[in-house]
C-alpha cells in the first residue's frame, strides 16, 4: 500500500512538473514580429430561433497602442472595418451595426482627424439561421496602425457555432 502511494505520488509529481514546463499557448513573439492586431473574444456559440433574424453581439479586442479604422473612416482611401458571413454557411447576415468610432490624430499631423476603434468593441450582427447546428467561419476585415506606421489589411476568421432551433 505504502509503495503504491509513493509511486503514485512521484508519478503525479513528475507529470505535473512536465506539464508546467511549456505553457499551452505560444511564447511571446520577438520585438518587431508581426502583431495580431485584433482578437475575437466571444461568443463562441449562440442559439437563435431558426428562420428569425436575431441580433448577436460579437466582441473583439484591439491590441494596446493600435487602432483600426471604424466602419466609416473619414477618408476614402482608408479601409473600413467590415464584418461578413460567407455564403452557404447555413447562416445569413441580414445587417451589421458597428459602434461609432472616435476621433484620433497622428502626432505628425494633429489637424487631421481619423475615425477609429481602439480597445474592445462589439458589432451587432443580425443573423438568420436555418434549423440545425452551423459552424460559421465569419470574417472581419480591418487595417491597423499605430501612431507612426500601418500594418497591411487583414481578414481574420470569426468562428461562431450558431444553433438554429
Amino acid at each position: 500500500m505504502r509503495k503504491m502511494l509513493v509511486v503514485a505520488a512521484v508519478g503525479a509529481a513528475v507529470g505535473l512538473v512536465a506539464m508546467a514546463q511549456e505553457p499551452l499557448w505560444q511564447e511571446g513573439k520577438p520585438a518587431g514580429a508581426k502583431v495580431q492586431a485584433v482578437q475575437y473574444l466571444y461568443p463562441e456559440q449562440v442559439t437563435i430561433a431558426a428562420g428569425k433574424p436575431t441580433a448577436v453581439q460579437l466582441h473583439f479586442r484591439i491590441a494596446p497602442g493600435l487602432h483600426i479604422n471604424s466602419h466609416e473612416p473619414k477618408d476614402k482611401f482608408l479601409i473600413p472595418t467590415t464584418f461578413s458571413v460567407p455564403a452557404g454557411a447555413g447562416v445569413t447576415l441580414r445587417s451589421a451595426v458597428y459602434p461609432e468610432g472616435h476621433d484620433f490624430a497622428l502626432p505628425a499631423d494633429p489637424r487631421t482627424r481619423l475615425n477609429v476603434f481602439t480597445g474592445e468593441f462589439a458589432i451587432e450582427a443580425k443573423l438568420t439561421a436555418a434549423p440545425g447546428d452551423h459552424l460559421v467561419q465569419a470574417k472581419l476585415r480591418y487595417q491597423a496602425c499605430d501612431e507612426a506606421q500601418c500594418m497591411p489589411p487583414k481578414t481574420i476568421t470569426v468562428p461562431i457555432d450558431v444553433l438554429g432551433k
Partner: protein
Amino acid sequence: MRREVRIPVRRNTLVLGVTLFLLAAFAWAGWANWEYRKQQAEKAAAAGVHAMLEKGESADALYTSSPLLGKPAPDFKLEDLAGKKVSLADYKGKALLINFWATWCGPCKLETPWIVDLRNQYAAKGFEVLGIDSEGDDLKASDAEGFARQKTAVQRFVSKEKMPYPVLLNGDSIANRYGGLDAMPTSFWVDRTGKVVASQMGITSKDDMEEKIKKALE
C-alpha cells in the same frame, strides 16, 4: 518484557498525509512555474507590441535598424504605372530613397508631400526617389479584378499627390529581400555606390528624411 504495539492505521495515515502533502507541493510548484511562464510570455508579447509603438530610445533602434545597412541594396525589377520594367540597376550612380508605401496607409499619405518637396530640392544633386507600392493585401494571384482595382487606387493616389518620381507596383514581390515590410511606410536610403546607408520604418519628420538624403549624397 515489553510488548510491541502495532499501529498500522496511524502509520498508513501518516504515509497518506505525507504523500498528499508532496502532491500538493508539486502541484503548487507546477502551477507557480506555469503562471510564471505565462506572465513571461505575456510580457514578451507586450514588449513586441510596445517596441512597435513607443518611440523610446530602444524602440528608435528598432525603427531604424535593418540587416541591409551597409550592404548593397537588393536589386529588383518592377513595373511602373505605364507597364515599363524598371530596375534598381537603372539608377546606378544616383543617391536614392526607396520608399515602400501603400494606398491605405495614413502615415504614407502624410509623408508623401515631404518626399515630393525633398526630391524636387535635391534632384539636381543626383538624388532620386523610387516609390514602391506595396499593398500587402491578401489578394489571390488569380484575382485580376482585385489587382486592377489596386492599380486604379495607386494611379489616383499618385495623381492626387502629384508624385514626380517613378512609382513601381507590386512591392510585395520583393518584400522578403527588404526585410519583410511588416509595416508601411518603410524607407531605405541608398548612396551612389548602391549601399544602404539608412533605413526607417514608420513616419518621422521631413527634417529627418532630409538628413538621411544628405547622408546618401555624401
